[in-house]
């Protein structure tokens, strides 16, 4: 059952990702990417990361992709702005080299001796008792409090930057 769900979500995510790169028009690319995000949220649920799954849907499908679609429609591109997709040899070569590297790393890492070094204390039973959101919140606000507060600085900078960049300059 878990394998069936995993394969469904994985195939959906992979196919939609390939579709995103192959589509000519950015709007279809954006829709394919949204499909990928939903499939990925399913995978997060399979990994017992329910909080991440829902935050993922809210942030990515809800905020980021809406922003993308908004900008695509705002720019009002003509069909002749979308030339047919050509795949140069350099990009293909880069992809192949990276694929080989990642596969090699994976083959090295599959050995359980490397991956499963030291186990943390949050196994499934603990999580079920504690609650996923509570556990993540506890670790976020205790051990990672300073980085968490610093992310607000990133958001503030991004906000100011976006306003300055996109503002129409007075002639």
């Amino acid at each position, binding site marked *: 059952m878990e*394998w069936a769900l*995993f394969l469904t979500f*994985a195939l959906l*995510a*992979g196919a939609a*990702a390939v579709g*995103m*790169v192959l589509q000519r028009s*950015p709007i279809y*690319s*954006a829709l394919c*990417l949204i499909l*990928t995000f939903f499939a*990925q949220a399913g995978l997060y649920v399979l*990994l017992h*990361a329910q909080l*991440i799954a829902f*935050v993922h849907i809210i*942030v990515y499908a809800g905020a*980021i992709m809406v*922003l*993308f679609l908004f*900008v*695509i429609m705002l*720019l009002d591109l003509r069909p002749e*702005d*979308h*030339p047919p*997709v*050509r*795949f140069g040899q*350099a990009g*293909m070569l*880069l*992809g192949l080299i*990276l*694929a080989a590297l*990642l*596969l090699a790393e*994976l083959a090295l*890492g599959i050995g359980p001796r490397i*991956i499963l*070094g*030291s*186990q*943390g*204390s*949050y*196994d499934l039973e603990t999580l079920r008792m504690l609650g996923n959101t509570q556990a*993540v919140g506890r*670790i*976020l606000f205790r051990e*990672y409090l300073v980085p*968490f507060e610093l992310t607000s600085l990133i*958001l503030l900078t*991004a906000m100011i930057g*976006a*306003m300055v*960049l*996109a503002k129409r300059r007075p002639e």
Partner: protein
Amino acid sequence: MVPLWAYLLLSGFLFIVGVVGVATRRNALIIFMSIELMLNAVNLTFVAFSRFLHSLDGHVFVFFVMTVAAAEVVVGLAIIIALFRNMETVNVDEIHLLKG
């Protein structure tokens, strides 16, 4: 139970699709979407490892990656809008101000 390598394989595949998208597509918007795809592939790796190592640190990192991704998209789209306003194109081959 689905083993860790299956998740890593999928995440590697998504990352490579993103890299090929950045390397081959010339539309700035699609390049940005490919970057989002790569960030998401990394997020999947974080969550998978944190599930198999019984740790929650990966989940916290995913939150940080999401924050950075959101900030990056906001600034990036603002740059694209400013570029389109000045040059009437989002094709990165036609934008070569720094090449002289």
